């Protein structure tokens, strides 16, 4: 019996060791790009890893590709689609991609585990994270979530925060299935969602979703943020500068005229119909451009928000206190340059 344990430990160790070795490619060896023409000699190849399948929440980045903003800045950006459990943080930290899209809570989680990622820009000011319930259920407040099935990502920080903050009597927690099919079938079902996505799809299929915004509970992490490593920031700040500036341009443009990029996204991810995307853009515009943060300042992040999020994560026991200094998790040095 001891032999079995030892052998499996050894195998585990060996596997992780090789994975670890494989993941430490230096950031200066960018992925070869396939799609460019003779002018590639002037463009720097960069990869951007998404945290989900292409959606409206990535619109600004795609806009910068489609409208050529990245190319104008001298960057040849390849956007890599993500999905469930996309290892964005590992890829960025390990160096196989230069940039990634993630959320602020995951950045803090990662940094608590010695993952080297830093947020450089946030298109969203208000989190689109919500819980959708059936209108029939009459639930209008988080405190009223009782006696139902709640589908939420295992280990999602919002999930943990909810469980700490709310009694959740008789609530059975199940893994988030990635779609609304179970929501439509079961009246006693609620699930996590993004306000510009699942509610629209559910309504389209005849459902009666009602969104409870996470920000109403005070939980408001920056979303769809652009991340990179502190190593890249210190060794190649010009690159990061160009990336941030072009991305901001992309977002500003996308929120006004999304149609061309939406077609592009629809081509990449046919499940995202043009109608969903159009609705999505309309829904997320007020989350990105607010009274406090006008269009010219799109991408802004403040220390207060990061500090508040960090203490919420400590409260939710997602991270231990004093393992993360929120100030090191983000930087605004690349914002506010005129572009």
């Amino acid at each position, binding site marked *: *019996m*001891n*032999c*079995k*344990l*030892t052998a*499996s*430990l*050894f195998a*585990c*160790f060996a596997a*992780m*060791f090789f*994975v*670890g070795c494989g*993941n430490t490619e230096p950031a200066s060896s960018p992925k070869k790009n396939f799609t460019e023409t003779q002018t590639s000699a002037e463009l720097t190849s960069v990869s951007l890893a998404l945290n989900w399948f292409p959606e409206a929440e990535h619109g600004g980045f795609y806009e910068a590709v489609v409208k050529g903003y990245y190319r104008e800045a001298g960057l040849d950006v390849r956007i890599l689609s993500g999905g469930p*459990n996309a290892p964005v*943080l*590992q890829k960025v*930290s*390990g160096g196989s991609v230069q940039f990634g899209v993630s959320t602020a809570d995951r950045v803090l*989680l*990662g940094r608590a*585990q*010695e*993952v*080297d990622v830093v947020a450089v820009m946030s298109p969203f000011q208000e989190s689109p994270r919500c819980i959708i319930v059936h209108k029939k259920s009459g639930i209008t407040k988080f405190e009223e979530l009782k006696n139902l*099935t709640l589908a939420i*990502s*295992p*280990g*999602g*920080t919002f999930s943990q925060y909810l*469980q700490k903050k709310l009694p*959740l009597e008789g*609530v*059975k*927690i*199940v*893994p988030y*299935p990635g779609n609304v099919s*179970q929501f439509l079938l079961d009246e006693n079902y609620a699930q996590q969602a993004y306000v510009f996505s699942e509610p629209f799809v559910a309504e389209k299929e005849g459902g009666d979703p009602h969104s409870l915004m996470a920000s109403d509970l005070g939980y408001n992490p920056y979303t769809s943020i652009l991340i990179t490593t502190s190593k890249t920031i210190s060794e190649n700040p010009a690159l990061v500068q160009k990336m941030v500036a072009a991305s901001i341009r992309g977002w500003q443009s996308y929120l006004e005229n999304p149609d061309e990029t939406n077609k592009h996204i629809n081509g990449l991810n046919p499940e995202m119909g043009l109608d969903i995307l159009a609705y999505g853009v309309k829904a997320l515009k007020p989350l990105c451009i607010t009274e406090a943060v006008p269009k010219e300042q799109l991408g802004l992040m403040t220390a207060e928000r990061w500090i508040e999020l960090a203490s919420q994560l400590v409260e939710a026991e*997602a991270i231990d206190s004093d393992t993360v200094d929120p100030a090191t998790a983000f930087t605004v040095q690349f914002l506010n340059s005129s572009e």
Partner: protein
Amino acid sequence: MKTKASFFWQRVFPPAILFGFVVIVWQIVTLAYDIPRYLLPSPLLILQAAVDQHEQFLSATLLTGFEAVCGFGLSLLIGVGIAFAFSQSKIIRSSCYPYAIFLQTVPIIAIAPLIITWFGTGFQSVLLVAVIISLFPIITNATTGLISVDPELENLFRLYNASRWQRLWKLQLPNSVPYIIVGAKTSSGLAVIGSIVGEFFAGYQADQFGLGYLILQTSNQLKTPQLFAAVIASTLLGVIIFGTVSFVGSVILKRFYALSSDAV
């Protein structure tokens, strides 16, 4: 004749030494190369993670263990029952056996979500997944044991005009026990895997979850020390259940079949 001392030096000491060696090398490597903890945590970190949250790990292990034991027990019952049917009729055997093989080859990761949709999240679905994954070795070994009887023993029973039921109960079934034990050992480990996979998809009550859920959660949150601890706990659980089944099996073999434990 094995004395207690020689048992220790031959069977326990070498693996223990190897284990200690691996752990020490691992610790040194993570320190020397400054490997970040989310990639490969050191043994000390893993131990610390396990100790810090030992209540959680313990209750998760107990829950998954309970599912696995129930799944295994159910597999044993159902598997031997199906084997009985297979052994009694060639027609049943040849028409149904290929579908038993299906149990072996179906990718459980693909089937589990379907099971959840049909039977709902919760204990019954996790149990079902565990049973599906661990059923085949029982069926196949029990069937072989029931039909592979020495033809001369069959003649003996025929000579004494034994009825079908007497043949089944006094000849086929005792003959099949060593085979069933072999199948049970394989099946017990599979039941643990099945429980964990089932938990991946089934979730649980807000305050009650098993190792599968823990694995998903810690993996999602990049809490690799805790992930390793959960994986090790799962491995240990499998080893304990396998070891218990093995032990019970050799006791049965020794007592009823007078086979020494080296024979199996």
